[in-house]
């Protein structure tokens, strides 16, 4: 076994890249050398050969789903995936050569488009697989998702207890915020990575500002509109216990906000790494159906 990490693209010194390049080159040379009496199409002997290769390739690419689910055996799944990617890419060229670059408003072109959709959704998958794992690790910062969720729940409890001692309005703001915090959910929510912890923070800030205004009115004019100035004001000692609690509450809610956006982002990355499969796999089954229709129609109705 190898004592280092290799990605799917450079598996076994990019063996499958070279294989795919060689296959493409062979097909291109054959296509250039072949000069049939009619314009190149699927009906010539080269067309049939390329078509057979492409058809078999599609079936083999489909087998990946089975291979992924059979856990015994001795080959590595990484090698299969590497081959799946490179040979899948080669399929574009072979299919186009097979068709002699002819397209039209017919079943065959529809099948070609289906196949291209599958392949390009696969490209998006490769992009996701290469890009998001690193981002996900960085975002998580060594915490697990369940640990972050636990901490959020705990912050909620503490915030509620704190708000309870301030005033009913603040309490209801915090409670509403807790009830409104939704992480995950439908596909779109997952992909958008939004959480609703902003509203509460804004509410608490407003409450603090209102208090500050009152205090200012009582204690003379003081400049400073921002929350930072207010924190200074609070720290100056003219505040009461409630303001102290409010300040603590802001800390808690800010921390929660940071965590909630982290979790939302985590879910987003995970969703991105999975969503493409929901297109790739059904479309690939449709492609197989298309393949059958293509072959049947060619042999029976041409």
């Amino acid at each position, binding site marked *: 076994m190898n004592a280092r990490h290799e990605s799917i693209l450079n598996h076994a010194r990019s063996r499958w890249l070279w294989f795919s390049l060689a296959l493409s080159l062979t097909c291109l040379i054959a296509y250039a050398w072949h000069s049939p009496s009619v314009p190149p199409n699927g009906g010539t002997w080269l067309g049939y050969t390329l078509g057979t290769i492409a058809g078999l390739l599609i079936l083999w690419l489909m087998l990946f789903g089975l291979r*992924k689910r059979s856990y015994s055996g001795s080959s590595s799944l990484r090698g299969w995936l590497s081959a799946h990617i490179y040979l899948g890419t080669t399929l574009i060229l072979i299919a186009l050569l097979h068709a002699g670059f002819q397209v039209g408003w017919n079943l065959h072109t529809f099948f070609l488009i289906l196949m291209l959709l599958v392949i390009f959704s696969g490209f998006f998958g490769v992009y996701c*697989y290469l890009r998001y794992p690193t981002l996900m690790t960085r975002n998580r910062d060594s915490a697990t998702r369940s640990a972050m969720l636990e901490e959020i729940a*705990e912050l909620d409890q503490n915030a509620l207890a704190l708000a309870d001692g301030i005033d009913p309005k603040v309490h209801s703001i915090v409670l509403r915020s807790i009830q409104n915090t939704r992480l995950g959910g439908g596909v779109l929510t997952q992909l958008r990575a939004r959480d609703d912890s902003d509203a509460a923070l804004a509410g608490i800030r407003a409450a603090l500002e209102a208090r500050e205004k009152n205090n200012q009115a009582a204690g003379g004019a003081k400049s400073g509109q921002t929350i930072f100035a207010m924190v200074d004001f609070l720290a100056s000692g003219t505040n009461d216990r409630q303001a102290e609690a409010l300040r603590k509450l802001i800390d808690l809610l800010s921390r929660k906000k940071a965590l909630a956006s982290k979790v939302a982002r985590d879910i987003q990355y995970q969703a991105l790494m999975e969503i493409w499969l929901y297109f790739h796999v059904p479309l690939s089954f449709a492609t197989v159906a298309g393949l059958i229709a293509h072959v049947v129609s060619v042999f029976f109705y041409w």
Partner: protein
Amino acid sequence: MSERFRIAIVGSGPGGISAAARAAERGESHVLLEAEPHLSNTIFRYQKGKFVMDEPGILPLRSPVPFKAGSREAILDAWNESAARLKINVRHNHEVSAIRRRDDGLFQLDCANGARFEAQFVVLGIGLQGNIRKLGTPGEDLPFVQYQLDDPDEYEGETIVVVGAGDAAIENAIALAKQNNVVIINRRDEFARAKKGNETAILKAIEDGLIECYYNAAPERVDALSVGRKKGRMVLSTPNGKAQLLIDRVIARLGATAPRGFVEACGVVFPSKDPAAVPAISPQYESNVKGLYIVGALGGYPLIKQAMNQGYEVIEYIRGERVEPADEPLLKAKLGGMPGFRGVDEALARIQKNVRVLSHITPLQLREFMLDSDLRTPRPGETVFARNDYTNSFYSIVDGEVHIALDDAGQQHITLRRGEFFGEMGLISGRRRSATVKAGAGCVLIETPRRSMNRLINSVAAVKREIDEVFILRAIQSRFAPEASAEQLKEMVAGATLQKFAAGDVLFSEGEIGDCLHLVRVGSLTISRTIGGKDVVLSYVPAGNYVGEMALLGESRRSATARASIATETVRLDGDSFKKLVNRMPVLKLRLQAEYRQRAASNLAMQALPSGGDIIQFLLAQGAGEATDILLIDESLCVRCDNCEKACAETHGGTSRLDREAGPTYASVHVPTSCRHCEHPHCMKDCPPDALRRAPNGEVYIADNCIGCGNCERNCPYGVIHMASKPPKKPGLLSWLLLGLGPGPGEAPYDPKKSKKEPKEKKAVKCDMCKDEKGGPACVRACPTGAAIRISPEEFPAYAQSRR
């Protein structure tokens, strides 16, 4: 006033109850003294419905009391029924506090409740659990004061005082705090005795106000109240004076007193201070105190069936009957293959006469030793074990000879003869075999598994001394001077000493003057240098290698710091005698220099990498230094598909043995919660049926004779073992794909709740590195992106260099 019986049996565990039953059956005058109000307290305290197994399956049961694998309740019911049927004279609530042999030859047994008994013979079957420590205050036996907690969810809305600061107390308090008002009482000002995780958890619970804590406090008394809503009241003494708590329940978790002190007070001698040591007993289970017999776990026999057989036999022996020990047929089958076999006793005597290491032990120990061991008679030329095998059994030569190959071609070899032993290097270092051993003419060997050998080494000092001496000589010989004879090395061996280092201890530091070198015997070292004010790890030195020779050969100062990465033992070789040896043997000097050049080159390569050493340091901090094979996940490649976990579950009966997400990460290198197959596996430490084994390729696995006791789960510091029952079978791929029957490949098996009534047999499960899969570890094979790899610590430097 004291009662007199012929036989007094102390403790009603499997051994005691079996002895009492046999005595009752035979009409002997007997008494069974039990501290608790029920029989067999250890099994009684198992959790409800626990499945108890009856290993070893090959051993026949010999007892008037029935026992077969089943739920705790079924076993206890059968025992209670037998006790009543056979009219065993049992006295509950009689905790024996002292046993004394009087001058008139009778034993006098004093109980904590003041009762006194006299007996001609005493059978001690008190096990190893010890006595639960009670509160030691008035009211300690009130009905709402309890010393264990089966199910924390049983209690709701109560005020509960938990007394104690250990793991059990903390775990109980936290579990109870979910539904109850919990107060924890700590005699000291911190929770230092508990595991790190528990300590953090309790401190957090206290800070969050979930649990109230009294530090430096001790209960003074507990009173029952007849009025008010609370059942009782506890008076506490605290640093601020007395406090009073109204309570529903007290749960005291104060640990247990180990039985050793009590046993020693009875006059029984233990061979060593090692906590694993067991008292020496005769083949008839009699201790050094005449008339005092020891059965069961206390005598070193931890399994229920063994103890029950001994209980039966001990009564027969006391009656003067000769019983063939229950293991006689097993030993006969084992030793029958010995050339010139006449009988078990004769064969055992021959073994003891021929093998010097075994001459130090008692006949009963030898029987036990032979039950665990195997007799092997390989043909001449047959390989006993091969170099780089991971086996760790120990071999003694009863007859004939073996050849140890010194080079790969097998041209040069050393011959060992009758009475010598080999395999001690693998046993001690926990690493691969250092040489291939082939059988010679007339070879008869005893192969002993690691656990039995370690137990012997720990309980008989003479065995340990002898093995250590031979180890040092052979280690020097094989590492430095295979050409030299024992005579030439005599001076060096005499000056060699064994040294122990805790993890993180420094063997020598950079810049010191070197006067010795170290051969690593157990554990591993890291070599580091201070570069730019920072300690940079340059290499990892596993057991079997040496460090510090260069300061003796050329430069006189140490060029780097050597530090123990885990608990380590080295053979320290004296510098002067080593220099002499080098001067006498120019070949050695050349060889050392060649090795040095190689090391220096790889160290330089590591130095050139700014972060290379950091990764090694991170891995070692995760305990990877004691690993032999560790799963690493590159998080920049991992797409979190969990196919590794699915593959693990699919290839191992539906339960994944790895937790991908858990575990620390550094610079994208993630160490998931998964077995590292330690050199000296912590899980093997205390396995009653010896079910934890090491396969020739290094895989530490659990054999089918696991009894589900959970010791390994508790002993593993990495949390990679858990208890699981077999999930239901899954449908085939096609019936899932086409008909949708049951869970598909990689999907979790359905909740087996349907059959919840019946106690499910739970066994320990852990990673076995897919030793039965021809393609190797399924987790690695099933990773679609190549994020998961398994590597051994020797490969860390190369791995670190590959990640820049």
